[in-house]
């Protein structure tokens, strides 16, 4: 396939045309929000402070058709794109299509889509929201009593400078994608970055496996544009002809760019401000309401009465509380010897209801019951 042609510019053979049509449709359906469930979800999500929740969701649209499994959705999308790529050819309107331009628009689609994902996730690491510092209750829970994903989150979270650095890498790469000439660098870094996120999602079952793979694929497709040239220059060590394509825009396309660019810029700045505001006021994974004043801490339960009957210290009594933690926010956690069913969520949903913010109890055992008293 001469998409990988090393020494000459891309030739639009019939096969290449077909491949491009397929790729264009395949990614178009993944990027343009067509899934009605997305809008349902947006309508059901509270806006969050400064619209943070909505903005973050808008930046991370991913379609799920029919079943809840993303991989099957991709297969369906591939089927539609396959049919579309054939039909495309039959429609006379598209006979004289400028394939260089189509490739250019495909890249624009992927560049901005990937940039939004990288920048939004970059912000929630730059302001450590995605992996917040472990709660005091979790710090007092045995290592073996966490699900793997929680260990991964907490291990990253205990080193905020490292999380900030990771966010910085995502942000910088995202910004590089906003400019055509630096796209390859941003895409190259993100291909490795999200490839790694994908691998760790598999290893620790972190729940965002398909999405991280999708972002990896976006990055790889963007990187492929210059990859043959880089191979020719660095590996083959040959004289390498630069990209010669300069897009000439119709007035309609110019308008799209004129309106699109400032919109994206405003969106990014707004998202950054909103994320910062969320981080400094009420990080979204922990309850917002303040806990009992001055009570933050780990407590030994010295005297415990059950039905007015004192139960001495015991690590095996099902009813006796063994220790209690008051968080800075309105959460109280208790250790008892009663078996509990683990909350298998990820605690990463957006909600203003403190009781539903379950990051601290998700994926963790050791008999911790979390009570979030709602303060009127």
């Amino acid at each position, binding site marked *: 396939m001469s998409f990988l042609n090393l020494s000459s510019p891309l030739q639009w053979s019939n096969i290449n045309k077909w491949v491009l049509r397929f790729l264009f449709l395949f990614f178009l359906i993944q990027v343009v929000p067509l899934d009605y469930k997305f809008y349902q979800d947006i309508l059901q999500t509270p806006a969050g402070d400064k619209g943070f929740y909505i903005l973050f969701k808008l930046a991370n649209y991913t379609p799920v058709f029919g079943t809840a499994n993303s991989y099957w959705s991709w297969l369906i999308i591939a089927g539609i794109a396959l049919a579309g790529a054939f039909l495309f050819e039959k429609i006379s309107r598209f006979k004289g299509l400028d394939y260089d331009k189509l490739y250019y628009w495909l890249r624009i689609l992927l560049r901005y889509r990937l940039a939004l994902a990288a920048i939004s996730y970059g912000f929630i690491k730059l302001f450590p929201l995605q992996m917040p510092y472990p709660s005091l209750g*979790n710090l007092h829970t045995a*290592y073996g009593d966490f699900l793997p994903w929680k260990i991964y989150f907490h291990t990253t979270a205990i080193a905020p400078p490292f999380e900030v650095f990771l966010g910085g890498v995502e942000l910088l790469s995202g910004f590089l994608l906003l400019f055509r000439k630096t796209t*390859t660098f941003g895409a190259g870094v993100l291909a490795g970055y999200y490839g790694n996120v994908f691998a760790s999602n598999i290893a620790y079952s972190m729940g965002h496996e398909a999405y991280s793979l999708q972002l990896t694929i976006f990055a790889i497709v963007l990187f492929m544009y210059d990859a043959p040239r880089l191979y020719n220059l660095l*590996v083959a060590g040959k*004289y390498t002809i630069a990209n010669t394509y300069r897009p000439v825009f119709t007035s309609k396309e110019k308008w799209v760019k004129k309106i699109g660019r400032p919109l994206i810029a405003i969106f990014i700045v707004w998202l950054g401000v909103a994320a910062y505001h969320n981080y400094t006021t009420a990080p979204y994974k922990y309850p917002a309401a303040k806990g009992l004043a001055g009570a933050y801490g780990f407590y030994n339960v010295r005297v415990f009465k059950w039905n007015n009957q004192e139960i001495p210290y015991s690590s095996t009594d099902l009813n006796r509380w063994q220790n209690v933690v008051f968080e800075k926010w309105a959460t109280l956690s208790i250790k008892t010897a009663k078996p509990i069913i683990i909350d298998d969520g990820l605690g990463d949903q957006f909600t203003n209801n403190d009781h539903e913010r379950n990051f601290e109890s998700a994926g963790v055992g*050791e008999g911790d019951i979390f009570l979030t008293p709602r303060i009127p």
Partner: protein
Amino acid sequence: MEPVAEIYIPGMLCVFLIMIIPTDAKYYQKWVTTDWKHLHIRDMGSLSGSSFKIIEVATKRPGGNDTGGAPEKKQYDYVIYPETGEYGAWSYINWFIAWVLGVAGALIWTLLDRKSKNYNLLYYFLEVLVSYAMIVRLQGLTFSKIFPSQMPDLALTQLNTPFGDFVAQKLYWIQFSFVHNFERYAGYAELVIMFALLFRPTRAIGAALSIAMIGVIALANHTYDGGIHLLASFYIIGGAFVLWRYLPPIWNLIVHEKSTTLKIVYYPFSRPWEKWFRVAFKSFIFLFFFVISAYLHWDNYHNDSYKVPQNPGLANARGLYTVTDFKVNDTVVPYSPVDSLRWQDVTLEKWSTLSFTVFNTFDIHGEAGRGKQYKDIDRTYESAGTGGGRRHFYYEIDSVNKIIMLKNKNKVYESQVLQLHYQRLDANEILLKGNNEYGQPISMLLTRRPKQYLVYQGRNQQNIWTP
């Protein structure tokens, strides 16, 4: 050649020669004195070079400078104890000296030799030297991840220690200890870097990947006090140096969209002996630091995983135990989470380590549980960097008299010795009787708890926590 290159190349040459070429005569002796018939991964470490070091950066923390029984610890004339710790900016003091010496050397060189020189070949060979230094220093880490022994399985004691009772360094390392496929994956990534650096056409890619992967590991080491930050940081400067000359052409081609070629002069290796030398040298590096190193690490992983104690513990006794009927001086001490003498949550490992929790204050074992120790008692991956009143003892079994003799694995308390008579009542109960670390007579009944750990469970099923 531009004037900047005229000072740049001699400067870099001096800096990297100082940093790479071992100045310690012992290193060269190693090539003769090594027991080649019984080659061990320990030898691979010492044959991979020694970093330039005149000043030892140490700590005054009790037990912090322990070498874990390494027999050939070099003594340094100059030792500093920086207040910011061994992992702060001061740990780069030897690098700083190397750079000062390197720059001074380069100035003298250019002053003495004022004729305009062609440094093209020098540049090329220096790039090769730095690349090979990166390969040779990486192989141990690569193969001990591919054969997961750098981060071995979690010990039971670690599974039963609260998350907040580990130091950051420990948490950083043990996050790999229950996902060995992820550890292998990281190892294969490092192997790709080693291969890319070995061959000229892929050297730029190898250098870029070095910075991206091992450079990030260097930063992580700083934020987590990881301890191998110097080794890892070498890949930032080494990688940057190798990649440097490729950057302008890449920038030209991609950003300026101008057709470009690399203007790098390679040594032609045209004479037959040069050809042979090149092939022989490369083959030697490949055979020794790829093939033999891989074999030794595989062998170590299967037979004597170097961080894991190897003496078997009490047979079929591995587990987490509830302590009941605990007596000190023949007086029963009822369970209490705040008793400074009463043991809680005893664990017995597959190997001969016994650990327990008491509510008391202790110095944390200072060193990081790294290195390739000889004796089980020095293999402290399971215990170093753990607080929370958790105590770890290595023990030897006298099966005739049913006695275990325990020694504290924490170097701060290495003089603590316990003797306990054991009696196994049934498969899950053990009676212990003897003395504690303060010489008081103690006895207790241990009952094994059936316990499943969430950390080995998936998220796509119902999981139940039991105490």
